[in-house]
């Protein structure tokens, strides 16, 4: 079973040299801590920055320099700043190679719901709908089940959608799954110590298991 950092570490293996990556709030943000050595990745923050650096040292916070989660950050040599329209322009144009974000539900055809729970105060979709509608490659980082113990991997989302047929891969505390173009969650890897049976039990949508499912190896 993976903790949040484990999920982040697992996703970080997907990063390729030269990638431009947009990281959502929560677990996705942690991916930045596990970028493999020798791999150069540029982080895009959709409020208008390419080349997001680490948090500033205390006392060096700049109120004019924040990320999309409104956290104080830093730039790096080679950073570029731009307005919000160009930021989503480059996202829509498919220039961002990988988007990693959280979800409340994912359906077996790749639909994602992560912005609204009917009956609860709705804060808004922020940039999530733009990102999922545009990114070439979307990986969801989330817990396999919700707090009530119900599967978040469903035949069909029950919550209002953020995007349709867009999720390519899902990493949870239990496993890594690929969403197949024809539908279904194809099990790729098990988290350390997690059995296929446990994954089956926690997955309500169509789970596709072909051959032996290897346990992942995280360095």
């Amino acid at each position, binding site marked *: 079973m993976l903790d949040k950092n484990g999920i982040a570490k697992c996703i970080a293996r997907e990063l390729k040299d030269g990638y431009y990556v947009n990281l959502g709030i929560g677990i996705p943000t942690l991916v930045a801590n596990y970028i493999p050595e020798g791999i150069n990745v540029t982080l895009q*923050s*959709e*409020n*208008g*920055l390419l080349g997001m650096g*680490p*948090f*500033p*040292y*205390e006392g*060096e*916070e*700049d*109120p*004019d*320099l*924040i*990320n999309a*989660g*409104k*956290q*104080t*950050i830093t*730039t790096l040599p080679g950073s570029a*700043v*731009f*307005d*919000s*329209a160009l*930021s*989503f*322009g480059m*996202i*829509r144009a498919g220039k961002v190679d990988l988007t990693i974000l959280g979800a409340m539900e994912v359906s077996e055809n790749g*639909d994602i719901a992560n912005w609204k729970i009917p009956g609860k*105060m*709705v*804060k*808004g*979709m*922020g*940039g*999530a*709908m*733009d990102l999922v*509608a*545009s990114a070439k490659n979307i990986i969801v980082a989330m817990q396999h089940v919700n707090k009530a113990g119900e599967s978040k991997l469903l035949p069909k989302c029950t919550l*209002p*959608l*953020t*995007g*349709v*047929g867009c999720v390519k891969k899902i990493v949870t505390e239990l496993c890594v799954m690929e969403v197949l173009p024809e539908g279904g969650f194809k099990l790729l890897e098990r988290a350390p110590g997690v059995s296929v049976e446990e994954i089956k039990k926690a997955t309500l949508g169509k789970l596709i298991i072909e051959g032996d499912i290897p346990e992942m190896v995280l360095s």
Partner: protein
Amino acid sequence: MNKIIANADEAVRDVQDNQTLMVGGFGLCGIPENSISALVKKGVKGLTCISNNAGVDDFGLGLLLQHKQIKKMISSYVGENAEFERQLLSGELEVDLIPQGTLATRCMAAGYGMPAIFTPAGVGTEVAIGKEVRNFNGKDYLLEYAFEADFAFVKAWKGDAHGNLIFRSTSRNFNPLMAMGGKITIAEVEHLVPVGELDPDQIHTPGIYVHRIFQGSNYEKRIEQRTVRPRV
């Protein structure tokens, strides 16, 4: 070409009840602090505000909410704000939630004289309800209309009497887009500099889009999520 006015009160002099305002900034970063204060002081009511966020309880657009001056918010993400939630639940406040990129592009569209744009954001979701869907090259897009506002309020780092603006770091965000979308655009700047001091190649918003400019004062520049790393 002198667009300089004395101060924020003078800048908002002709804002009327029930008008539509664009307000720059992302969270509390790059918001027109002086203009917001002047709008509170002026007490105009029934405003529709196009702004990515709605401030916090005691800062940014939260100040206008506190005084019940806003009728409707058009935003992508709101609610770091208890008063906002109260007004929304009680039905005093209307909210239109719009994907962030759509919001930015609709503001930009006005400034580019484009009456509408196509975006894939929201296709297949409740955002698409009632909207025209059109397929280009096998992908569906929504038709979304340009935003125009009676007034746009933006905050820049530097500006000159011609209205030329330069923004600093990520406080740029929605500001240049909204500067282009106002029928009357009002810029407040941290540094009002003599004409000729700004390099023509480095101007983010050409003065043609700006109608009034003033030297702001007492910038608080509050930080919403102070995050730091330990010194090693």
